[in-house]
């Protein structure tokens, strides 16, 4: 966690923030009520993170916040000041083994829930590199998909976990 150099003990409606997103530092002035999801999508044009519900249920907006999977629709951009955020755009320029597995196993259809699911899978495999099917379903229970019926998503995660283990790859 990075040190903060601004003092927020005064109440404000707008402030300057500096956020590290996918390794790049962005400085912006934002309204304090601006949701992190909207900040990423419209202030930074990182539209890969999607908005499905705005009340913390669907998982489409999942990003990594200091390495932890969080719902960006339930955070304000100001809360990301001096913090590190990873979005789907930051996972890799070539397809990461996780994404490759999703393509091979047809783990997506319309693609709207997909970035949120990929980010959750990153977080999950970092902690459980060898998950059982039960564990996969449990850890992904915070991401909703209306197209696939989840079957192929589970298969994709199993394949991704296997490939990562084979390659001795640490999921970051």
């Amino acid at each position, binding site marked *: 966690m990075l040190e903060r150099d601004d003092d927020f003990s005064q109440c404000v409606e707008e402030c300057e923030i500096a956020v590290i997103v996918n390794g790049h530092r962005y400085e912006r002035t934002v309204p304090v009520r601006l949701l992190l999801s909207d900040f990423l999508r419209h202030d930074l044009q990182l539209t890969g993170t999607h908005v499905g519900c705005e009340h913390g249920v669907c998982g489409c907006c999942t990003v990594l916040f200091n390495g932890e999977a969080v719902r960006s629709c339930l955070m304000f951009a100001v809360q990301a000041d001096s913090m590190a955020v990873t979005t789907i755009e930051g996972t890799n320029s070539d397809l990461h083994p996780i994404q490759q597995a999703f393509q091979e196993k047809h783990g997506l259809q319309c693609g709207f829930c997909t970035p949120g699911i990929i980010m959750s899978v990153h977080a999950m495999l970092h902690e459980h590199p060898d998950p059982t099917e039960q564990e996969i379903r449990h850890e992904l229970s915070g991401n909703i*998909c209306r197209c696939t019926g989840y079957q192929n998503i589970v298969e994709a995660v199993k394949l991704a976990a296997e490939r990562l283990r084979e390659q001795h790859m640490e999921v970051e």
Partner: protein
Amino acid sequence: MATRWFGAPVQRQEDPRLLRGQGSYVDDIDLPEMLHAAVLRSTHARARILNIDTSAASAVPGVHLVLTAKDLGEVLEPSPLLVPHHALTQPRTQLPLARDEVRYAGEAVAMVVADSRYIAEDALLIEVEYEPLPVVHSLEVSSAENAPLVHADVLGNVAAHLVQSVGDPDSIFASAPHVIHETLLMDRGAAMPMECRGVLARWDAHDGMLTCWISTQGPIPIRNGLAAIFHLPEHKVRVIAPDVGGGFGTKIMMFYAEEVLTPFAAMRLGRPIKWIEDRREHFISANQERSQLHEVEYAFDDAGILLAVRDRFLHDTGAYTPYGIIVPIITACTLPGPYRLKHYYSEFTVLYTNKVPVSPYRGAGRPHAVFVMERIMDRIARELQLDRLEVRSRNFIQPDEFPWDVGLVYQDGGPTKYDSGDYQAGLEKLKALLDYDNFLGIGVGC
């Protein structure tokens, strides 16, 4: 590159883009000078609108436009009736903004355009004086004697009534060894795509060109419709369906109010206007489906052979009939299913209720029919203590009986005919694949 595709796993072209978050859904598109819209929706299922005061909304800094019905000029017209039908004697479609009355909680009453969606929502401080009216909240209420009327000029809330009949069910019922009567309710459901609805409209006055990006399943008919509504030649209207985050039928409908209001605002202000539906709005204003109440009687013999079916059902169309009555027609025509049913009477009544309108959703009437028929099969099996799959097998249309004419007129006006099939083989294959006998409980639908 392989020359044989059938049976080969084919990877999709769009996946690398979608997996990297490089999709382009309507809210991903930001245009210069763009403004944002929010819609005020009725909080009453049924009410008269006595007055609308938009002065507070217009005074909010950052607000550029506030629209109510009186501001729409000749655009204030009921949306087109898609799929008319001779039995739909009392069709009704929606105005882009409610004028005198609201007929479902969620109906659009006003639109605000502002610098940001946040400000537009702040500005939904529009005072609407409603006179609440008795609500038609179910098929029971709608069909009751002296029921309140969803539309003042539609007697008994009946939008349509259709009877179709094959063979001679009455005499079969008179002599059948077993007759059962059941009431089956299929309740309302919603498709709930992960991406809500959305419209981005841009009017180029120099070019006379209207361009809309819409999260829709039907860009071409919408293009044609918008051209008609705004009196533009078709080549001067372009509707683009970008990446769409699921539709399942909900997005095949036209016109949603916002599909007319957003281009209207864009033309009025000369700036691109974006309206993105949020999930709360989707729950109360995106079309739903499924609601039907069936009173079904069926006759069968000691061998479990289904002899005749009489099905009378009520279909809930919500407050309007934008998509005509194709859903209940499909229900009526699908009910016989893969079974040899030569004596069948179907009667349906389409009723208005004070709910979100109904338009096709994944199955468009078929799931309802299958639900009814498969409950019949299971019940026959239970009554005669026969195996559930065995009863179905005994009733299947046999391979040598195709083409099989069900004897009904389908929603497109054509006959309901099956051209080929080997249902028994299919069922056996499925049974083997599933390891059918090793489940605690299993549901069957053919």
